[in-house]
């Protein structure tokens, strides 16, 4: 708004927004603080805030648990694998739909979207059966494929909206300038599409990383990613708040940072272009 606003008002909004912002952020903040406490301090009455002996012992303890590094590896493999596989299938499709739209392009897009809305429980047992039949229960490949499939509509859709923003005149200009299809793709299309592809990858890594239905149900130990690993804390013994916090922080930190970078794409990716 091109209007002068009084500093007083601005300070008021600032205080209010920061107050609410910190309140919403508090659970994450508290988890972060707790992860550096000893188990005893973690449940001390009254709670301690900043002034305690900060320790890294919880992180060490979690890392020592044999299955943490495995879970982390699984999360990375599954999130990256499913996203990249999805991109591989989606790029040509989105490309074709954006640049050579036909009469049914819109229907195909909407149909793809509709598969995203299929409730997981509707296909739960058949998938278990199929996985057992191919002997891929609790394997990374199974989760890579399933997460690729559930996120493929979002990937296609996001790429499509990005590709569609590349003006047709630029491709025509390249053709006039003597570029053949190969050069058109290498020198013009790909560089212009890369930012869109990058944000699509980013958002889908986040979605895959946090997926917590199939990852919990279809894994036991070998392919269990962090979602499942954390869930194993739900039936704990003894004092465990600080360790739970440390494990949680390690599980969410990378994605939190990626998420902050992908705020804008998030809106676009999750509303399928319906809100701009």
């Amino acid at each position, binding site marked *: *708004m091109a209007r002068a*606003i009084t500093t007083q*008002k*601005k300070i008021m*909004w*600032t205080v209010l*927004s*920061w107050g*609410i912002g910190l309140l919403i*952020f508090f*659970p*994450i903040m*508290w*988890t972060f603080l707790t992860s550096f406490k000893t188990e005893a301090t973690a*449940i001390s*009455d009254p709670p301690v805030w900043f002034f305690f002996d900060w320790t890294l012992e919880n992180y060490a303890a979690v890392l020592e648990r044999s299955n943490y590094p495995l879970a982390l590896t699984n999360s990375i493999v599954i999130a990256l694998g499913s996203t990249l596989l999805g991109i591989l299938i*989606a790029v*040509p*499709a989105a*490309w*074709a739909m954006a640049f*050579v739209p*036909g009469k049914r392009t*819109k229907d195909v*897009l*909407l149909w793809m979207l*509709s598969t*995203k*809305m*299929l*409730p*997981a*429980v*509707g296909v*739960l*047992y*058949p*998938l278990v059966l199929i996985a057992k039949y191919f002997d891929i229960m609790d394997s990374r490949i199974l989760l890579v494929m399933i997460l690729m499939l559930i996120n*493929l509509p979002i990937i*296609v859709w996001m790429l499509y909206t990005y590709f569609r923003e590349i003006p047709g005149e630029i491709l025509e200009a390249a053709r006039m300038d003597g570029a053949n299809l190969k050069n058109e793709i290498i020198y013009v299309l790909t560089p212009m599409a890369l930012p869109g592809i990058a944000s699509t990858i980013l958002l889908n890594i986040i979605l895959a990383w946090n997926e*917590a239905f199939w990852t*919990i149900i279809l894994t036991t130990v070998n392919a269990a990613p962090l*979602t499942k690993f*954390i*869930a194993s804390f*739900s039936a704990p013994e003894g004092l465990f708040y600080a360790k*739970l916090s440390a494990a*949680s922080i390690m599980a*969410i930190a990378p*994605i*939190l940072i*990626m*998420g*902050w970078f992908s705020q804008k794409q998030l*809106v676009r990716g999750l*509303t*399928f*272009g*319906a*809100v701009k």
Partner: protein
Amino acid sequence: MATEHSRSSARLMIAPAVFVLLVWMLVPLIMTLYFSFADYRPLRATFETWIGFDNYASFLTSSSFLSSIGTTLWMVGSILMITIVGGVLLALLLDRPMFGQGIVRILVIAPFFVMPTVSALVWKNMFFNVDNGLFSYLFKFFGAQPFDFLSQLPLFSIVVIVAWQWLPFATLILLTAVQSLSSEQLEAAEMDGAPALSRFWYIILPHLSRAITVVILIQTIFLLSIFAEIFVTTNGAFGTRTLTYLVYQRVLESQNIGLGSAGGIIAVILANIVAIFLMRIVGKNLDN
């Protein structure tokens, strides 16, 4: 521009995506449909391929189905209420001029990126726990009795957890919509003598209506399949068994595949009703 040649290569480029999604959608769904008409209980080694609509009948008439529908509606409905109302207010607030807007945005959006199992466990243990949770300290501080949220108010507790995760999503989308409202429109209304509340009611809210609809539909689709939050907090006990969770239990815990599959098909039908509305909005948007 689009020649015959480019059209056929376009079809070839779309084919893999269409194929995998088609297989993904049809094969398991047809299997589920097939099982839903069968009496299939592997633990008892029962497999009778055709028992008609018995599974549907017993699933639909069971008290657990009706209560699961009630639970689902309560859960989804109250989460939608909280996130939409909270999201509109937060979006308007974050649109105000202030210092450090970017940082506040980052703080507010953060919960959305926390994996469901982590947020559920953090809330369950560090906030709701009757012995050591922060809320208990808070209650004691004000001289009240500590309160066991998860066993006394289990549904409410889960609503709080999930609403905390989804409020950022609603806020972010509504904020995007708020920012697309031209300030000239608001200034025109101000010139026309509309007070702040009328401006909100007659200009801002109608402008947001589309974004609100989109948020409601998308959240509904995701919320209908809430799983991890229930799994790690109550495991479906104390009246927190949603339709999704009920089907999961029938299929994987009691291994009554026929009954569970019938439930699964019912869930698919219900989700599709919501999906149709969302598709309409998205489809309209594709045209312009």
